[in-house]
């Protein structure tokens, strides 16, 4: 949004300056044929400032994360934050200032080794301290897959509750960012959704992120918290300075409606909000918009209750279609709400390809694809 606008202005400015430099640059057209930083595919609308949690402050997503971490380090003396590059503030600025404030034994860099980061984090948690592990990009979480799936998720169960790593929270930047390509854009929640014993949470905004992250940290089960990186600077809201909790495993109905249920999480919530507005304006269709928030364990009750009412369901996520989390939702809803369905459940997702670079505008499940799918459902 604002960030994309700045990027375009920056490109123009450099073009003008370049022409005046002459030489090689003057032979090039003033702008490339296609902008290398496309405008964002959604419009972030901030939620109103809550009044229940005291004084608020304007924060973007990464600042709301810092705030949650600051609150945690302040009230929990055992809490430690670690990962690659967190000491200087992190590649996305989520840990800025924390090392100076709380000390180098509490906010520290680890060697470049995701399996080590998560394994180490499990051990910290097993020893009774609060462990907040950062994986630099969700795309790099896979070396830690064994530690997450075979160890963290199973620690309590396999020990008969003698041991657990409930004090572990893993954070990772997640989702498309406009230019991230294969390895800086992934949404891997579906891999982990298949793993009993962990929780997976994805916020849509700064206000949601702080409350959900604090809940993950305090939750007595290992949690993975995916942070939509495209929102780090682009999403700005009034966020309470003091700690507050948003419950896990509770979806939020952002807008009630009667004709179609739209479900998404993270960045995609903002896409479907726009789709709901388009549907109302162009088709007179009333949409119920749901932010799932927690992927595992997910709030089947809220989604099913909505579909019983509307009879139509559209689920959308950036992650590829096959085996994506929409398939789990779709399967459960058709089991629970079969006779209420007026149309097949629609999934609008990324294609079954790796996440491409230059083709990102075509790859993502944008509002036009969602709108088109919705239209087909209405006309079914």
């Amino acid at each position, binding site marked *: 949004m604002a960030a994309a606008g700045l990027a375009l202005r920056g490109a123009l400015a450099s073009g003008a300056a370049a022409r005046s430099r002459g030489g090689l640059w003057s032979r090039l057209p003033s702008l490339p044929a296609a902008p290398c930083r496309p405008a964002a595919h959604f419009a972030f609308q901030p939620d109103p400032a809550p009044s229940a949690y005291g004084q608020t402050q304007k924060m973007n997503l990464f600042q709301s994360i810092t705030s949650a971490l600051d609150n945690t380090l302040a009230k929990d003396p055992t809490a430690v934050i670690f990962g690659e590059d967190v000491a200087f503030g992190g590649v996305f600025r989520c840990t800025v200032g924390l090392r100076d404030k709380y000390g180098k034994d509490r906010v520290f860099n680890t060697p470049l*080794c995701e399996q080590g980061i998560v394994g180490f984090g499990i*051990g*910290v948690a097993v020893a009774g301290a609060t462990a907040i592990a950062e994986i630099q990009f969700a795309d790099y979480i896979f070396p830690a897959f*064994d530690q997450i799936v075979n160890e963290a998720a199973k620690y309590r169960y396999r*020990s*008969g*509750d003698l041991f657990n790593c*409930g004090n572990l929270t893993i954070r990772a930047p997640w989702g498309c960012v406009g230019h991230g390509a294969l390895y800086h854009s992934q949404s891997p929640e579906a891999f982990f959704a298949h793993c009993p014993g962990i929780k997976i949470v994805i916020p849509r905004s700064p206000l949601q992120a702080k409350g959900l992250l604090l809940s993950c940290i305090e939750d007595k089960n290992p949690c993975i918290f995916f942070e939509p990186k495209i929102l780090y600077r682009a999403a700005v809201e009034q966020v309470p300075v003091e700690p507050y909790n948003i419950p896990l495993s509770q979806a939020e109905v952002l807008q009630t409606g009667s004709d179609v249920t739209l479900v998404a999480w993270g960045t995609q919530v903002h896409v479907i909000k726009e789709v709901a507005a388009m549907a109302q304006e162009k088709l007179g269709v009333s949409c119920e918009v749901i932010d799932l928030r927690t992927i595992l*364990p997910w709030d089947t009750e809220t989604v099913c209750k909505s579909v019983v009412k509307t009879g139509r369901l559209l689920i959308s996520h950036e992650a590829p279609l096959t085996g994506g989390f929409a398939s789990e939702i779709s399967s459960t809803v058709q089991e629970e709400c079969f006779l209420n369905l007026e149309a097949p459940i629609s999934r609008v997702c990324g294609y079954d390809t790796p996440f491409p670079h230059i083709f990102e505008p075509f790859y993502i499940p944008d509002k036009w694809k969602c709108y088109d799918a919705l239209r087909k459902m209405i006309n079914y």
Partner: protein
Amino acid sequence: MPPGEHPNPPCSPPTMTLLNTMDRILYESQRQGRISFYMTNYGEEGTHVGSAAALDDTDLVFGQYREAGVLMYRGYPLDLFMAQCYGNVSDPGKGRQMPVHYGCRDRHFVTISSPLATQIPQAVGAAYAIKRADANRAVICYFGEGAASEGDAHAGFNFAATLECPIVFFCRNNGYAISTPTSEQYRGDGIAARGPGYGLMSIRVDGNDVFAVYNATKEARRRAVAENQPFLIEAMTYRIGHHSTSDDSSAYRSVDEVNYWDKQDHPISRLRHYMLNRGWWDEEEEKGWRKSSRKMVMEAFEQAERKLKPNPQLLFSDVYREMPPHLRRQRAALERHLQHYGEHYPLEHFEK
């Protein structure tokens, strides 16, 4: 006082021979179909007891799967070893895992898991937290020379050194990872030689010399806590038994090789001879102990056999700390299923 001069050496024969006796009986019980699986500790008893004796009671232990002697040294009762192997109602692990996957919170022995080397970076994290808690405790992490090839081992060593953790890494180099001899596991100079590459203080010891193991572990532990300096101990020993009840090692090694270690370089024999020579032990005591240890093991064994298995409802708990709605529904679904089809399930062996 070095253990060589002590009239009651901390690593006395009782634990090692009790372990040996329990191993024989439980291995046999698997062969008879009474338990599903077992792993013996033959030949490595010295590494367990020598190191365990050098630790404080509250030092946290992360193991791989062949360290039952450490738990036994700390006083874990026979009936609980058996309960886990049988998966009966007395198993603190609630019947969730295969035999020999012991764990004990009160004795600071973290529950074993099957994936190899995963415990290594975890042990480092625990040591870091313990360091911050200023607890004057150390962590010891056991693993075999095969597991040391895993990426998690590399991760653990590097993190321990860079983050200055009070941890003793204890590698049981027993010559084989199932059928893979060390010549196919590594080409360098074993595991100890890797330590300096990470900045770890490292030492190689004769794993079948209980006192050497004790002395090395004692000093490593002392310095780990005093200086936040991690240590790597590589204990050279030999896996006299098969890898597990699913293995027949005659397929890949000679009986002569095994006999050499069993007869010429066995930790229990070596300690026994040492103590006999000093008059701290005699043949009478040896005979008496063998008899009473066998009796104790058999009693615990018979008791474990008779007990029921836990209620099948325990299949569903502890996935999370609280039981989420979908698991409550699935548990109820199994209950309904058993009401109609219960005759096809071994319900008579399970607690109601």
